[in-house]
């Protein structure tokens, strides 16, 4: 694989006296897909939120394309890193189309006509071209999450972060979101996905990173991780999750 696009070194993060990340470090290469697994409360989501600085961390370093990110470049960093949230967070006062063109037009200063063209193209890709004038409250959770993915892609980011994108969905809606994520992956996007969807991890991930208690316990390609897992703690987690 090609060069490193994102690297985390020794990230420590505490909420008050509660240390949730205890020295997290890994690298993401261009086009690589990492799935982060781990029990709830292990710090998985916090890792993603530290990457685009929605959370501040006390120690360690994150560099993007080989450069450490400084405070005044934060907004520009975020335009390169798309994020999809567990609870979708579609802007409730805007239509689907307005949601998607909002940041390209107002942050990237793209021409509105170009942004609309891009948005319509993305809506086709996520299968929602007929919903362009709907509001979030008129959409199912799965549809909202697909809009959220299109909205993040509209910034043409270098990396996409997915924070438990299917955890808030009814079971029958999970598949449609995973299919869109798979298509994004197949298009060559660099991705970090926090999820409990083992099937997705097997199919899509280049590496599976297992986090527990704020530390990385394992970091391997999925075949090795799932089929040849020696760590007792991880085996027990995997057996619990597959019983779901």
């Amino acid at each position, binding site marked *: 694989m090609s060069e490193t696009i994102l690297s985390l070194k020794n990230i420590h993060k505490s909420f008050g006296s509660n240390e949730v990340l205890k020295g997290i470090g890994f690298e993401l290469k261009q086009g690589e897909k990492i799935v982060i697994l781990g029990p709830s409360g292990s710090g998985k989501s916090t890792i993603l939120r530290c990457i685009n600085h929605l959370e501040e961390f006390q120690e360690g370093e994150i560099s993007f394309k080989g450069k450490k990110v400084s405070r005044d470049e934060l*907004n520009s960093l975020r335009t390169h890193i798309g994020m999809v949230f567990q*609870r979708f967070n579609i802007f409730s*006062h805007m239509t689907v189309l307005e949601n998607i063109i909002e*940041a390209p037009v107002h942050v990237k200063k793209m021409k509105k006509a170009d942004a609309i063209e891009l948005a319509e193209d993305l809506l086709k890709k996520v299968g929602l071209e007929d919903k362009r004038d709907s509001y979030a409250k008129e959409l199912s959770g799965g549809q909202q999450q697909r809009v959220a993915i299109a909205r993040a892609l509209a910034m043409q980011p270098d990396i996409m972060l997915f924070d438990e994108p299917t955890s808030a969905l009814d079971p029958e809606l999970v598949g449609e979101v995973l299919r869109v994520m798979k298509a994004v992956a197949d298009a060559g996007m660099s991705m970090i996905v926090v999820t409990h969807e083992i099937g997705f991890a097997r199919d899509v991930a280049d590496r599976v990173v297992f986090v527990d208690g704020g530390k990385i316990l394992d970091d391997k390609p999925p075949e090795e991780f799932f089929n040849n897992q020696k760590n007792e703690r991880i085996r027990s987690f995997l057996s619990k999750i597959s019983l779901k």
Partner: protein
Amino acid sequence: MIVDYSVVINKLPYLLQGAAVTFYISVLSLILGLVCGILLALMRDAKNPALSKFAFVYIWIFRGTPLLVQLFILYFGLPSLGMSLSSFQAAVLGLGLNTAAYVAEIIRSGIQAVDPGQREAAKALGMSWGLEMRRIVAPQAAKICLLPMVNQFVATLKNSSIVSLVTVAELMRVGDQIIATSFNAFSVYTSIALMYLIMTSVFMVLSNVLKRKLV
């Protein structure tokens, strides 16, 4: 007992003039209160602790002391520091700065009521604080703020009767002057009440129109 509304009819031009002054002072104070209130609410939300603390102290003082005392400080107190305001200036400034504290709290609670996820999504898309406020928070907070804001506008209009005590010739003071010569307190005060009611009703009707547009 004198219940005789002829005096009201005879003095109606004066009362209407007073009502116009009341309306004028209220509108100016509301504009001042709205502008300062928005600034204070944004300062409270800002990361900079000095700004946030300033806004907190401002609201604490202006909500925690009587409007009448604030007006007296502005009109009777400031001349001792070598700054004199006309009664009209003192009235607008006092009423406006007082309203600002309440407006700030209304807007702040509106901002806090916006789902934090909406703001995170804005940040994650690279929006600056200002853009996030303007494009995402303000439109959603405005709906939440509308009703309490109308309450505050009505309260400010009614509170403007207090500025009669710093000698502004608004509705209340004109009424007092008419009573001083006619001794007809009941008819004059009930007529004044009706005039306040008409003015506050105008606010409520306007707010209903606005509400239909926003929601």
